[in-house]
């Protein structure tokens, strides 16, 4: 196979994390979806995209909110009796990967079945790349994003670049 | 028991190998013995030998559920060293080293104890300081130890990774010249033959299924070959200590974990010493038949399956290449697993148990093979006299209640982190 048809671009990836307490999940989620104006992803790995905001469920009671480039951050007030929020807008970077050979290149990075329903466009998979926890977001037929911890990002992008 | 020697080989060569006798008799169980040792591995067989050799107790049976030497003694990476840090461990493993040095002649069986030296690489000044502390303790206990700097290591083991792409550059190493390897099967067979020579019955395919009690005293065992009475019973079953211990009503701080071992295709001489990688879990030596024998970390979950998973195989391969890049093209021939009886402080448990007539020898974690002779010697003494041998005074079961734990690595009471 000649050098694979595949490109990688790297950018910051600001997030906000919200989490509900064990016994107030229902209330928390109804108030959150009201303030966001959209329903929330049902199970871990599902995402909802609404007015420039991507909502990802990363744990039974934990959601990540990611803004598209240039989108307006929603006013977010979390009732402390129901849950809490923490800003994660500095610690992660996004690898945007596109190309016909993306599945083969990615198969050398993470253990995700490109053809499986769990990895279909619009799905999120929390997994690991060389033991580093990463979030895989399938964004298209031959496109995806990897959300990686900032301190590991250069090491992981070197790893992926080396696969060319 | 005809003596083995070059002459015996010459004499038998002329007679077409017809006159060699059995190395140990195919014994069937007698109704009872003075001592029953459960477990036909290195420790059990050594215990039986030293009961006869040191204490004149010959009415002994070793009961092995499979074939002797089929457990951990036949599955380990054969490394022998006495570079232990803590008071209680240092002396015990050095005593074992001294017994190793005389073993082939004591047993009249060449166990091929090859003292080619063992080194552990250091990858930071702090780590080298830690090794110096260990080396100081070794020297202060009459044990040979050296601290090597980077250039010494490059001279001794030139094929290690001294390039600038090394992820964890080598700063130096700790070296013990008397350390090395031995042929593990020969240790089991050597002790079996020597014990048999003293009249010990070695009974294979005889699994202990329960204990016989008189009140709360153990007076024998139930086996797949019928009941066998005993004045005293010694447990030396390593990975299955908890399974048999439970049958005797013992509550133990032991978890069984799988530790994998690996061997490559046979090669001309490449690795002379035992080389251990201080930045990750990997160590390697070369057997006399030419295979590189190596090992790494536990798989990290309870298991009796004597086999490991592919994840650890890859991690060990990665560490192997990080230490010695030239091993990349050498091919793995076979990988298997032993069942490690892990204790919360990774030190063994040898002592009389709270149950009268029952003695325990277990908790060997990684260190079982190198401890075989000293374990047999001290366990025999403990069974014969009823009191722990001074060298194993620190290995009592009650140490976890009192807090006198011997945690060499300081990894804390999770067995899988040891």
């Amino acid at each position, binding site marked *: 196979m000649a050098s694979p048809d595949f490109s990688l671009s790297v950018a910051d990836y600001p997030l906000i994390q919200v989490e509900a307490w*064990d016994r107030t999940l229902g209330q928390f989620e109804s108030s959150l979806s009201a303030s966001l104006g959209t329903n929330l992803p049902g*199970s*871990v*790995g599902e995402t909802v995209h609404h007015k420039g905001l991507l909502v990802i469920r*990363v*744990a*039974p009671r*934990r959601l990540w909110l990611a803004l598209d480039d240039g989108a307006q951050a929603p006013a977010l007030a979390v009732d402390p009796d129901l849950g809490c929020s923490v800003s994660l807008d500095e610690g992660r970077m996004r690898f945007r990967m596109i190309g016909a050979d993306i599945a083969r290149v990615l198969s050398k990075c993470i*253990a995700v079945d490109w053809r499986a329903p*769990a990895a279909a466009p619009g799905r999120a*998979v*929390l*997994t*690991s790349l060389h*033991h*580093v*926890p*990463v979030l895989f977001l399938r964004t298209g037929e031959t496109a995806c994003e990897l959300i990686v911890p900032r301190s590991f990002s250069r090491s992981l992008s070197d790893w992926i670049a080396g696969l060319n | 028991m005809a003596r083995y020697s070059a002459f015996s080989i010459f004499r038998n060569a002329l007679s077409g190998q017809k006159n060699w006798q059995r190395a140990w008799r195919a014994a069937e169980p007698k109704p009872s013995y003075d001592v029953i040792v459960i477990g036909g591995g290195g420790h059990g067989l050594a215990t039986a030998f030293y009961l006869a050799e040191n204490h004149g107790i010959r009415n002994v049976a070793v009961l092995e559920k499979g074939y002797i030497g089929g457990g951990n003694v036949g599955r380990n990476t054969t490394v022998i060293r006495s570079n232990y840090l803590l008071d209680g461990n240092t002396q015990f493993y050095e005593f074992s080293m001294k017994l190793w040095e005389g073993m082939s002649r004591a047993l009249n069986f060449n166990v091929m104890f090859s003292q080619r030296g063992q080194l552990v690489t250091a990858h930071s000044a702090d780590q080298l300081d830690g090794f110096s502390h260990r080396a100081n303790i070794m020297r202060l206990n009459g044990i040979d130890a050296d601290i090597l700097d980077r250039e010494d290591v490059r001279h001794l083991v030139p094929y290690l990774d001294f390039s600038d792409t090394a992820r964890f550059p080598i700063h130096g190493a700790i070296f013990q010249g008397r350390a090395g390897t031995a042929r593990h099967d020969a240790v089991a067979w050597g002790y079996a033959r020597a014990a048999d020579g003293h009249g010990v019955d070695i009974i294979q395919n005889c699994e202990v299924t329960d204990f016989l009690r008189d009140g709360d005293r153990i007076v024998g065992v139930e086996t797949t070959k019928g009941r066998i009475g005993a004045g005293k019973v010694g447990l030396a079953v390593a990975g*299955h200590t*908890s*399974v048999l211990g*439970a049958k005797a009503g013992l*509550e*133990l*701080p*032991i*978890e*069984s974990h799988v530790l994998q071992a690996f061997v490559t295709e046979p090669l001309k001489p490449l690795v002379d010493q035992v080389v251990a990688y201080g930045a990750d879990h990997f160590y390697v030596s070369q057997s006399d038949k030419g295979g590189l024998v190596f090992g790494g970390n536990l798989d*990290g*979950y*309870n*298991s*009796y*399956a004597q086999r490991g*998973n*592919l*994840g650890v195989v890859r991690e060990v391969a990665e560490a192997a290449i990080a230490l010695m890049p030239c091993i990349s093209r050498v091919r793995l021939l076979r990988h298997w697993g032993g069942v490690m009886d892990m204790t*919360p402080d990774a030190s063994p448990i040898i002592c009389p148990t709270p149950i009268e007539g029952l003695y325990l020898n277990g908790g060997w974690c990684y260190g079982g093979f190198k401890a075989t002779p000293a374990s047999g010697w001290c366990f025999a003494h403990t069974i014969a006299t009823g009191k722990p041998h001074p060298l194993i005074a620190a290995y009592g079961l009650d140490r*976890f*209640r009192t807090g006198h734990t011997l945690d060499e690595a300081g990894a804390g*009471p*999770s*067995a*899988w982190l040891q």
Partner: protein
Amino acid sequence: MLRIECPCCGLRDHDEFRYGGDASVARPAHDDPDPEAWYRYVYIRTNPAGLHREFWQHVTGCRQWLVVERDTRNHAIASVDLARKSSARKSPARNPPA
């Protein structure tokens, strides 16, 4: 690889998880003063050659702690549950002093 069915993330290799050891030993209440209860919890293990209740955490996934029942002889996994759900069933009431 052991393959563990994380209730949130689906079937994953076990090296995405961190082992947590025996889950059948009941942890004493945080203010339980009895040394024997803590000794038994920290040190004594049944270590069965058979079905073993154990903890695993999906560290590179949803970070939930799980309770897995697995046969230690052949590694066959019988069940996987969120620790929160299974522990909620029996909250560790303080043991009466021995």
